């Protein structure tokens, strides 16, 4: 039972980090990119390659993985978002980001292979540490630090305030001279870096596996919807809730009910509290 709780918290932290990356991109573009989970997958694969195959030291591998994630985030904006948003108000970004996510997954599959591969140990620790193993707590530390860092970024920095301004009203922000395209690009790069960092930290838990992206995209979205779109505290709470529900459902009922229960949780929250646990109900004056 304790193992179920610890595993649930660890996987929940990964979902929370993906939800935070969703929030970053959503704040400036109102887009929920399907590539979000793939950015996380990329961090795991690049980190495993850099340390396991290229034998680079851990800090260099980390920098490489985060830079790779940032680049993938930027490509998401340039290829799948920029032109789509400029030309249409419809939700065509769903298709363009899905296409890019599929291409990214196929490319990684061709290059990296389709079997899960090991992620090297990041810190010197024996495998006998049980539930104190780094694979469980590293994702939790990264998710918590990312949530805290984003709060500080939004509150204390000029760029953070620009993100908030765009989140409130992108047209008004542009009218006040804010370079909205550049700010949106920056948010996608930051989301890519955050996703890759989470993937790197969770690599020992998930292995470096090319097909992980879509699962994380789905679970990150559920975490976001449960916690409340746009809320970083909500992303953390939603991720942890989803991880725990998944893990305890598997523990109690078996894995065949896991997906049903995850999606059931989403449905329940949408019915009872559509804005999510920490979301704010949008009021439109008429």
């Amino acid at each position, binding site marked *: 039972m304790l193992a179920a709780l610890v*595993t649930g918290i660890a996987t929940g932290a990964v979902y929370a980090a993906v939800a935070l990356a969703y929030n970053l991109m959503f704040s400036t573009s109102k887009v929920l990119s399907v590539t979000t989970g793939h950015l996380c997958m990329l961090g795991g694969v690049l980190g495993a390659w850099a340390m396991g195959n290229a034998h680079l030291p851990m800090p260099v591998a980390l920098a490489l993985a985060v830079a790779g994630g940032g680049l993938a985030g930027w490509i998401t904006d340039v290829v799948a978002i920029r032109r789509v948003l400029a030309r249409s108000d419809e939700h065509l970004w769903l298709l363009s980001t899905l296409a890019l996510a599929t291409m990214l997954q196929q490319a990684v599959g061709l290059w990296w292979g*389709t*079997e899960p591969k090991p992620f090297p140990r990041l810190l010197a620790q024996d495998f006998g540490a049980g539930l104190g193993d780094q694979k469980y707590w590293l994702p939790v530390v990264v998710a918590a630090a990312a949530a805290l860092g984003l709060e500080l970024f939004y509150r204390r920095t000029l760029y953070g305030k620009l993100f908030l301004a765009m989140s409130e009203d992108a047209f008004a922000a542009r009218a006040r001279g804010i370079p909205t395209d550049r700010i949106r690009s920056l948010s996608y790069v930051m989301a890519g870096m955050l996703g890759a960092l989470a993937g790197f930290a969770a690599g020992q838990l998930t*292995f470096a596996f090319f097909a992980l992206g879509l699962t994380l995209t789905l679970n990150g979205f559920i975490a976001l919807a449960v916690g409340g779109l746009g809320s970083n505290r909500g992303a953390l709470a939603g991720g942890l809730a989803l991880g725990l529900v998944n893990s305890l459902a*598997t523990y109690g009922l078996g*894995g065949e009910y896991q997906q049903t229960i995850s999606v059931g949780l989403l449905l329940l929250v949408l019915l009872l509290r559509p804005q999510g646990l920490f979301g704010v109900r949008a009021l439109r004056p008429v």
Partner: protein
Amino acid sequence: MGNGGRFARAAGIAFGLIVLASAAQAAPPPLRIGWLSSLTGALSSAAIAQNQGVQFAVDEINAAGGIAGRKIELLTYDTAGDPTKAVNFAKKLVFEDKVQFVIGPVNSGESLATVPILAKAGIPNLVIGALDELIDPHRYPLAFRAINTNRQWISPANDYALKVLKRSKVALIGDTSGYGTASTKAAAELLEKAGVKPVYSVLVDPNKTDLTDEMGKARAAGADVVMPWSAATGLLARVLNARGEAGWKVPVVGHPALMAPPIRKLLNKPEYWENAFAVGYVSTTYTADGKLPERTQALLSRIRQKLGTGELDLMFWWVALGYDTVHIVEHAVKAAGGTEPAAIQKVLEATHELKGVFATYSWSPTQHNGFPDHNTLMNLANTFHDGSFQAAPQQ
């Protein structure tokens, strides 16, 4: 141009046409074989290895003059493990490419979709998926299986756990994929037929990040053997890691993927792979003196250069199976004297003990599963070496 020039040109054209016509008459049409292979995607490892065997057999046969003078034209389509793509390519092979045989698809899920289509089109199909439902001589009279059935994997594993290891408290762990669910159910049924009710049975997501709980529950239930039925190497490695980290000495007996080379790197410690046994094949098991069966060794010697330098890092049985499928086509076409489907069916249904590298095949009018039980055996999971394995101890 004068009359002489016109005559020379006309003569040249006439000569060319005659040469072309006679060449066309001399060369019989190629034998077109469709090969549905998931060369990319999540299930590509086995397909890539099988493809090596298929290509090599085609090259060898063509170099020797073809089948009854007909060169083989191999049409390979990458289904990426996707049943929808497999269906589209199967239709293309039948209706556009006009193939005479189809080998594959590689995965049972894809085959479930393509076998009825090929049966309706009247094209002989060599099935290489293990799912039991793929073969039915009445509904799919031209579908012949060249690999074992799923039950031919499960039965020897059950026998090994119960009769050799003398265990009776079985914990079954399957994954939630269609294959994992069906296999775990079949394993439970076969165990119950043998008078053993599993003390613990669970299905888990193939990407579940930790199996500590499941292994803990199995242990608490009193299990004295753990039997995982999943083809997901990540999940199987996590079973072994959870067992190792708990210091539990219970044997693990199950699916062939339990001894797949990628598992080695996913284990926290190499010793976590000890005391694990997986279903394998006689054809890729070293004898007591460290040698492979004669036909396996002969193919390995011929194909080694194509598979790269150094030790093989793929399971050689997949290569052998791919190689055999083309030779089964050769046998059928030669014996039938052509590619007429009814004649091919008759020949294959009368085939008894056709010696291949992967196995020795026999089919009959009522039995289109050609793989014999005695071609499987249990391997020691951590003994992978150069594509093959050592046999599990029998006491």
